[in-house]
């Protein structure tokens, strides 16, 4: 049995009886036991429940009962997405033992389609970070070289899919958090259009820009999972009613006759040479597929990092205010404390990056600075949106490297927040403007590290985006993961 099969292959193999759900889950759990010590993708593994669920699925298959489209497929969930019965820690001491009394909408939809939640995966604390080093449970490691960071903040999602510890995963993408680990771990990661996937049950970090997105080994797997998780949700007022879309249908439509813009500001200075040449190679592949490729200039991109960290920090400072340890949290009694003293003691449990962003956020929102920083950042956002709108009048897709540089060593940049922030330079445009973006594994560097190519489409063109990503994927032949 090959654990490296895609989600769609899994479905067809289980349908024609080649494999059973129980076997597959058991094998996956073996695999997790073998590689977890090296890669540390998981925070919590729900072994017993996964096996029980798999047996139920197999019984249903035998009895020819109706089965959901995911057929007992093991899926890992980023640990900032609520799962009833399994703790949701956000990789923070603040929520170390928090068990939500409800499933996130995406989780209940996965369960309805008979996916099996095999466990919860690692992230930077409250999804704030780009390397998964800011987890209170320790960093995750890149399966392509365990000395290297896997990207982040959904590092556990990228690692667990790449290291064959599950078939697919759900991450969350606030400034590139799904696409960064997808690129660094050589898997596919989608940030859907804002409002396409419910955020109900996603622990908020920067709620005006973040989306839950799937991570998988193949573009078709992303389409399969989008079929399950996307669509309007009565628990999330920001979700949009767009009717049912089948993302698998016409996935191989190709890019013939499409116009693709290469974003100049994302391919210039500061981009690693090998990443640059991979990007040029990707453009050639699109041309081979009879797409027309032109350079596109989006000068607002130059301000995107500043705007992003202003807006995201502002929202973070508000979203994380609720952690006062009164209604849930860790073991620390209130007795003998005055309220404010208690709150400040409790909140000293946040890690360094979360603390940094909350302070920054409180500052940019404070009276006298709001106009100078927060409003200005919102203006950049509006300007970027209008530039994007103009760009999509000229082209169907935009292309850029997902990450400007190759994965680097764990610990190498952790003391340099500014350098880390610049890693997001190419991804945050999609978050600030709400458009969908996907990272497709495209090449392996001379040092054996993955390079991903990012494609953007206009809002709610997610299906077209997947078609372009699929076309690019079909041009690649990548080696198997070494771990």
């Amino acid at each position, binding site marked *: 049995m090959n654990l490296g099969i895609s989600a769609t292959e899994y479905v067809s193999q289980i349908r024609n009886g080649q494999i059973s759900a129980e076997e597959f889950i058991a094998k996956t759990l073996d695999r997790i036991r073998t590689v977890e010590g090296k890669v540390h993708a998981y925070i919590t593994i729900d072994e017993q429940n996964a096996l029980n669920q798999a047996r139920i699925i197999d019984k249903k298959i035998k009895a020819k009962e109706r089965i959901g489209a995911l057929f007992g497929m093991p899926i890992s969930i980023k640990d900032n997405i609520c799962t009833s019965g399994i703790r949701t820690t956000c990789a923070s001491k603040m929520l170390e033992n928090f068990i939500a009394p409800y499933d996130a909408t995406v989780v209940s939809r996965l369960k309805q389609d008979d996916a099996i939640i095999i466990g919860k995966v690692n992230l930077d604390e409250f999804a704030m970070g780009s390397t998964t080093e800011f987890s209170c449970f320790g960093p995750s490691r890149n399966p392509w070289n365990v000395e290297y960071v896997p990207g982040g903040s959904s590092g556990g999602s990228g690692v667990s899919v790449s290291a064959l510890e599950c078939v697919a995963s759900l991450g969350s993408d606030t400034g590139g958090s799904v696409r960064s680990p997808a690129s660094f771990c050589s898997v596919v990661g989608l940030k859907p259009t804002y409002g396409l996937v419910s955020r*109900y049950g996603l622990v908020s970090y920067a709620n005006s820009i973040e989306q839950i997105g799937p991570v998988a080994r193949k573009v078709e797997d992303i389409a399969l999972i989008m079929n399950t998780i996307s669509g309007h949700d009565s628990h999330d007022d*920001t979700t949009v009613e767009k009717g049912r879309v089948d993302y698998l249908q016409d996935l191989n439509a190709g890019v013939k006759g499409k116009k693709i813009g290469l974003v100049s500001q994302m391919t210039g200075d500061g981009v690693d040479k090998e990443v640059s040449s991979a990007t040029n190679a990707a453009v050639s592949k699109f041309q081979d597929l009879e797409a027309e490729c032109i350079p596109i200039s989006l000068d607002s991109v130059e301000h995107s990092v500043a705007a992003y960290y202003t807006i995201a920090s*502002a929202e973070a400072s508000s979203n994380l205010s609720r952690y006062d340890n009164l209604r849930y949290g860790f073991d620390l009694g209130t007795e003998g404390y005055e*309220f404010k003293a208690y709150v400040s003691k409790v909140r000293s449990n946040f890690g360094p990056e979360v603390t940094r962003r909350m302070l920054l956020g409180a500052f940019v929102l404070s009276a006298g600075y*709001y106009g100078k920083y927060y409003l200005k950042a919102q203006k950049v956002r509006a300007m970027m949106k209008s530039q994007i709108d103009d760009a999509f009048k000229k082209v169907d897709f935009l292309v850029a490297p997902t990450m400007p540089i190759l994965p680097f060593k764990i610990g190498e940049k952790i003391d340099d927040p500014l350098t880390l922030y610049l890693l997001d330079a190419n991804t945050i445009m999609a978050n600030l403007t709400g458009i969908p973006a996907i990272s497709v594994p495209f090449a392996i560097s001379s040092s054996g590290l993955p390079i991903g190519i990012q494609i953007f489409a206009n809002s709610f063109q997610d299906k077209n985006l997947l078609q372009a990503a699929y076309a690019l994927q079909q041009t690649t032949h990548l080696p198997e993961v070494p771990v």
Partner: protein
Amino acid sequence: MTKIGLEIHCQLTKLESKLFCSCKADYRNLSPNSNICPVCIGLPGSLPILNKKAVEKATMISLALGCKIPEQISFFRKNYFYPDLPKGFQITQYNAYGPTSIGSDGVVQIEEKKIRIRRIQLEEDPGRLVYEGSSEKTQITLVDYNRAGAPLVEIVTEPDFENPKQVRIFLNVLADLVENLGVSDPYLEGAMRVDGNISVEKANRVEIKNVGSFRDIEKALHFEITRQQSLVERNIPVVAETRHWDEARKITVSSRSKEEEQDYRYLPEADIPIIQIAQNKIAALKENMPESIIAKKERYAQKYGIPPQVADVLSSDKFYSDLFENAHTDTNAKEIANIITTDLMGFADTREKKLDLKITPKHISDLADAILNGTITRNSGKIALQEMVKTGKSLSDVKSSLDLGNVSDVSSLEKIIDEVFKEEEKAVLEAKQNPDTVNYIVGKVMKKTKGKASPGTTLELIRKRLLSS
């Protein structure tokens, strides 16, 4: 000149559910922390879902107060830490970056005075702190989140009041107005709360917070006027500050804490998309809004000839005006207005007594008809009414059980008059000389018939008798 402005918090108690979740809007009489869900206690991952009915009700209040309704409204987060605030912020509205609250720039006429409304905003109520323990040392603070997320409308006036009396009149008008609109029961505990700000001539502005009731705001304002004036007279500057009303001592006390000047770091609430308020929807709301108290009062006076003062009292009270609407016909309307305002309101002068009334529109309507066609006197009617509201029995049942039927046949009445003429010879003589004193004899007859005799008939018979003897 003294200037007073108000901030009134009015709960939309008539809504089924809270502002952002499906827990009950009326949290009263429930055991602590039983009316809560992941949304209203702000569990990680929960999201607010705006109650669209609350927007409707807030729009109605704004329209009734003459406010402008913007084309779109949005919500903001007001960030601060307090144990009763589960998310660390309150979802509210904020106009500093353009008018996005549900209403602004309204005006209310109270007697001769125009009170301008600065803005009206929709927001969530926090939870409640409950203190237990006798002394300060043993005191513990408990938090009850049943109220957290209850729908609240904040009404902010310009500093247009000149004295506490205008404030009282305004608050009464406002309470009647929200009750008449069917959006709130202002008499429920905590349903309507008032903060004020006040400055006397040549003095700084002082905020007054923590006032529990309407009566107390008037007292607090009086106290502040005296305090500020005496400072000014002695050339001591009035400090611009926030003062809390101390209910026990009936004085205002400086809060002396920096907390009051805290920075709320307002931030757009991205979980709730901007809401478009369609003009045709406003028109439809206007159309379907209950008749205003002023319009009602005019209709009562013009259509039924009810005296203005009676019409005023009747129209301002939703409970009684509803009863009137359901009971009256064109012919008995005036009589019903009389019964309600002179008798019924007298029996039920408190809210509890009002709720205990076992009265139906039919009771009132039967009674008015009986009085008008002379089958019962006003006096007996009052007794019958008292019995009906207590027992809920019909008028005919009450009439027979209490023997309240009219003594209307002339022969039995003449017999009683005979008796009185014998007993009251002196009075009869006097009446013959001075017809103005005849009422004394009428009174005696009424007493003997226990008020059941028709006063008109009695008087007529007595006059005849005085002339003939």
